[in-house]
């Protein structure tokens, strides 16, 4: 998941004027990027572990929380990325075929006997899971606070 945050687009004239006064926007963009990464990390942490009786493989943490970074801070935008092929598959869904063996192997939990059975299939199609990507609206309020705090501190320092 790649998130691009552009700070000067679609601003009110007043805020745009204040942004343009910043000679260097990268310190602010760095804070915004880190806050966005933290928001995504919290989003994955809040997702419940699987409850179907199969031991959890900590997917959301392993492929989500642990794979978030801020790989790039530009002059006008910052990129936050969840760098993970399994997470991309989770989000987009798709067909998985057996490639190394004749069949794929899936665990199924039997509630009656409390045992795990393995079933073998040649291929499986996964539906997209929207939980893999955080919604924009969830994040924007957190980022707004960061922007406000940044200017607040800047005024105090300048004073």
């Amino acid at each position, binding site marked *: 998941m790649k998130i691009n945050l552009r700070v000067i687009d679609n601003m009110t004239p007043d805020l745009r004027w204040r942004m343009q006064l910043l000679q260097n926007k990268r*310190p602010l963009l*760095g804070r915004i990027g880190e806050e966005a990464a933290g928001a995504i990390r919290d989003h994955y942490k809040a997702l419940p572990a699987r409850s179907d009786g199969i031991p959890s493989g900590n997917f959301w943490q392993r492929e989500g929380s642990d794979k978030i970074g801020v790989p790039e801070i530009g002059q006008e935008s910052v990129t936050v990325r969840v760098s993970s092929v399994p997470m991309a598959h989770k989000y987009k869904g798709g067909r998985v075929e057996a490639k190394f063996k004749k069949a794929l192997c899936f665990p199924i939990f039997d509630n009656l006997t409390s045992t795990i059975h393995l079933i073998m299939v040649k291929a499986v199609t996964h539906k997209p899971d929207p939980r893999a990507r955080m919604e924009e609206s969830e994040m924007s309020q957190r980022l707004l606070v960061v922007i406000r705090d940044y200017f607040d501190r800047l005024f105090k320092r300048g004073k």
Partner: protein
Amino acid sequence: MNKQLLNAWAKPIFDFYRELAAIVKDTRFDMDMLDKAEDLVRRMPRGNPDPLDDALYEAMSQSMQQALLDQARLSRVKTLSIADDFGPVQSAIDKFDSKSPVLSAMSHAEWQAQPLAIRDRSFWSARVENEKLVQSMKALLQANISQKRIQLSNNKEAFVDRNVFIMLARQIALDEGLDTKEGNVVTNIASQRRLGLIFDFQTGSAQNYARWKIGNDPDFMDGFPACELSESRARHPRSNAFWASRWQESGQAVNWEGAHQTKFIALKNSPIWTALSRFGLPWPPFEFGSTRVLEQVSREETEKLGLLGPDDDVPPAPDRQFNDDMRQSVSDLDPNRRDALQAMMGDQVDIQGGGNDAVWVGSLVAGLVAEAAGGGPVTRSNIISFGSATNTAVDKAADVPKDLSLPGTRMVMDAQDVKALLKSDKPTDTKDIELIPHVWRRPDRIRIGDGNRSLRFDKSIIGRRASVNFEMDPKQRAWRVTGADIK
């Protein structure tokens, strides 16, 4: 704006101007009047602007916050766009690509004794000298980090995850007869445990390097000048006491420079990070199998902990200092150890820059390829020697005519040679050119080549068949590459 504060500040000033105006108006213009006016001006009230300043600041701050809230309501912060791109991180790819595969019988402890510059720029595994395994492991890890699919023998394509890496690398180790029959232990290169450890360390190190690099961007450090060692995410983590003890040892070793004594928090340029690492690197993993990473600590938190004062500048980024340390780690080697290192590594390593820089063969070739493919003028000024003929090569060439015998000769290559290879009728991939020094060092077969004074070296390497034609330059007693066919 607070009117009372403004009036309190302005009243003495207005009173002063009224009195001054009265003197000018009511007194005859003479020296006496000027003296009175001068005396009054000397006593002119300045007023105390501080309360006014505070009020002005509050008003501006409130106005700013209101503007931000208005902006949020009006445009719903269309400053954010989330794309469905879960792609790779370029700096992690670059870091891993810069490592050259190195074959060596050295144990892990012997490797740890080598200069950091050498360890960090090479891809190695303790006591593994098998070229096919080392090259294959690097290619598989490269595919994982860059999220590229690999071609399987059944013509299907697959991404390389941890399980795929272990399965394929293990198969190569078994095929090459490298299983030590010790079972699933780290001393057995064919074991799942050892291969899993290699995967976790290499991919973790590349990803954490990428985070470390952006974390040291001066503009990023402005907001986050320190780091905290995170909680473990391992299924069976080491105890907190282990890390607390390691933190104390490392802190005392560096005199707690820029580091907090009880919390696992330190400034980014604190030497505690490299002291904490088993591998001498300032980014995680700091220990085999460790899942602890570095989390950013804000400027405010750093100040609260007393690591920085409110007026302190952000400390300089540590990456330049780290690079200097890397150079130092080679130049500190005494000449005897440097010679011993070259004897162990053969011509895989070249110590340059007056002994300050260790360069691997792969990096040297990459430099020539960059020059040849760069579009600028390509000269023969930068001739790189890839070492004398090895005993293996001399043995394989026992039957060639005497004027083509290998003892006492060496292989050289420059950017023009590389350019000719790239433009030949059998164009060679830039990655394949990196294989040529390995073909020179350990050929499977040597036969008479194409053209005068030529030898052709054949070798099977990482599942490919390489055939390289070398031509003798009798003046320099050196062999140059004149053709390569790598399939």
